[in-house]
């Protein structure tokens, strides 16, 4: 460790970029003292967020979410399964999160990223426990057939707050979901009723004419914050996450319930006041994200 006075002199002579690489923590702390972050954001401010629905033509529902540079592409494919005996009138949702090598210099092909299964598990827990989707809505024929919704989320660009962006894209993909109209054929299999022969000879009665859209109630949204000393930094970038390691992710749904409060270790302890501050920031963010989602749905319906 160098004396602080000594390196303080050094910093004034050094170029900003070199200082940033050599003393990343001090570079960031110097910003925090001024209540600003290197990308000119305030501490509690999230990055610009955009949503585009229906990005994947081959899927039944899809969305592209961007928070700053972090980009997520989520797509849902609907398949048919035989429901289990315990829950004959329920469908199923299978969620997988992928980090292909294109998204980050640290991911190599053949070796899956460490973070991917963890985010995947968190997403499943959050989406299934939030009560957003009633699994009974995914039933087709009681005891015979129900929907299995495969939700795959691909990280196209990883720049911090992966879970937040992944959850946003997942929620948006579900709100974009258009369930295909299907009928039972003679073999007892479920087949799509195609648009073409709908007008003319329609032998089979569709089983799900009214259920083209899923009803989403109490949608969950999340915000990840960094705790660093007394500072709370909302929506961190990858650089900030690598330097200041204490992360808190709060997930709230639209009915104001807590879906998850996730703080996996880290250097700093979270006291009640910090937890309350994180929740307040999340409440604000939920409002922002709700607006962004509503606007994206509106844009989609206009087209």
């Amino acid at each position, binding site marked *: 460790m160098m004396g602080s006075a000594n390196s303080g002199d050094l910093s004034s002579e050094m170029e900003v970029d070199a200082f940033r690489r050599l003393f990343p923590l001090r570079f960031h702390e110097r910003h925090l003292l001024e209540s600003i972050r290197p990308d000119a954001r305030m501490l509690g401010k999230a990055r610009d967020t955009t949503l585009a629905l229906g990005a994947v033509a081959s899927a039944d529902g899809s969305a592209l979410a961007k928070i700053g540079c972090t980009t997520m592409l989520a797509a849902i494919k609907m398949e048919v399964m035989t429901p289990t005996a315990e829950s004959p009138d329920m469908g199923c949702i299978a969620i997988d999160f992928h980090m292909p090598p294109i998204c980050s210099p640290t991911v190599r092909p053949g070796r899956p990223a460490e973070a991917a*299964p963890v985010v995947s598990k968190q997403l499943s827990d959050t989406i299934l426990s939030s009560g957003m989707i009633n699994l009974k809505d995914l039933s087709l024929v009681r005891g015979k057939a129900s929907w299995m919704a495969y939700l795959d989320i691909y990280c196209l660009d990883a720049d911090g707050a992966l879970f937040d962006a992944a959850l946003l894209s997942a929620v948006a993909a579900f709100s974009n979901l258009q369930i295909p109209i299907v009928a039972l054929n003679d073999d007892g299999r479920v087949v799509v009723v195609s648009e073409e022969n709908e007008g003319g000879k329609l032998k089979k009665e569709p089983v799900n004419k009214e259920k083209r859209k899923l009803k989403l109630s109490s949608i969950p949204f999340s915000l990840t914050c960094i705790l660093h000393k007394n500072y709370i930094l909302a929506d961190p970038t990858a650089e900030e996450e690598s330097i200041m390691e204490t992360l808190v992710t709060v997930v709230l749904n639209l009915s104001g319930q807590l879906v998850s409060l996730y703080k996996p270790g880290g250097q700093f302890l*979270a006291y*009640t006041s910090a937890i309350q501050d994180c929740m307040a920031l999340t409440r604000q963010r939920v409002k922002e994200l709700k607006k962004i989602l509503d606007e994206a749905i509106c844009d989609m319906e206009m087209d």
Partner: protein
Amino acid sequence: MLVQRMEIDRADGRTPNQLRKLACSRNILNRAHGSASWSQGETKVLAAVYGPKAGTKKNENPEKACIEVIWKPKTGQIGKEEKEYEMVLKRTLQNMCLLTVHPNTTTSIIIQVVNDDGALLPCAINAACAALVDAGIPLKHLAVAICCCLAESGRVILDPNKTEEQRLKAFVYLVFPNSIQSVLPEGALQVGGEPYEHGIITSVTHGLMSVDEYFFCLERGRAASAKLSDFLRRSLQLQVPSESSKTG
């Protein structure tokens, strides 16, 4: 009257705040540098510590010690859930360890699940903590982990077993620092009006709850962590004399 009704709720006849029987033994494996077994009722976990070994893993900061956690389930392959446990455990232990004492080294912690009857992750964290002490890894403080379960009525029960965990609407895993016995005057270790040991190292929640219910869990968890702290300290102290006589 009310108290009685609450007691009947738990299948094993415990009161809501009562923990299961705790047991901890250290130095149970010969080849490991440190080891411990920890059990809470029927849940039992073995932890072994190897290290510090030279060098860090790829992409890890060589200026700090690297901590590696390997989770061995009771049966079968390691899945997403175990990967998450590994990550939570690793970050929790990073909080406890003095990482700058042995830079550019790796310490491996192997967690073997012996039996899972609820509150598995807290049990593993407690076991890992005892094993780290046994291996003599430099630590900032100890940590205690606790599981709080939330019933539909908003009541909290502590240290649930598997059936309670599955039946009730939500549960929270909480990890707090061990309460510190120091020579400093009362209140010297306060952080923003709260005692040091009330800070959350780790929080993992499952299921829906209201914000107030979370804080209620937090309060109950903190109260229980004091008891756990005492037990941990007692069981770590017990074995010290026998160890020094062995080396001497």
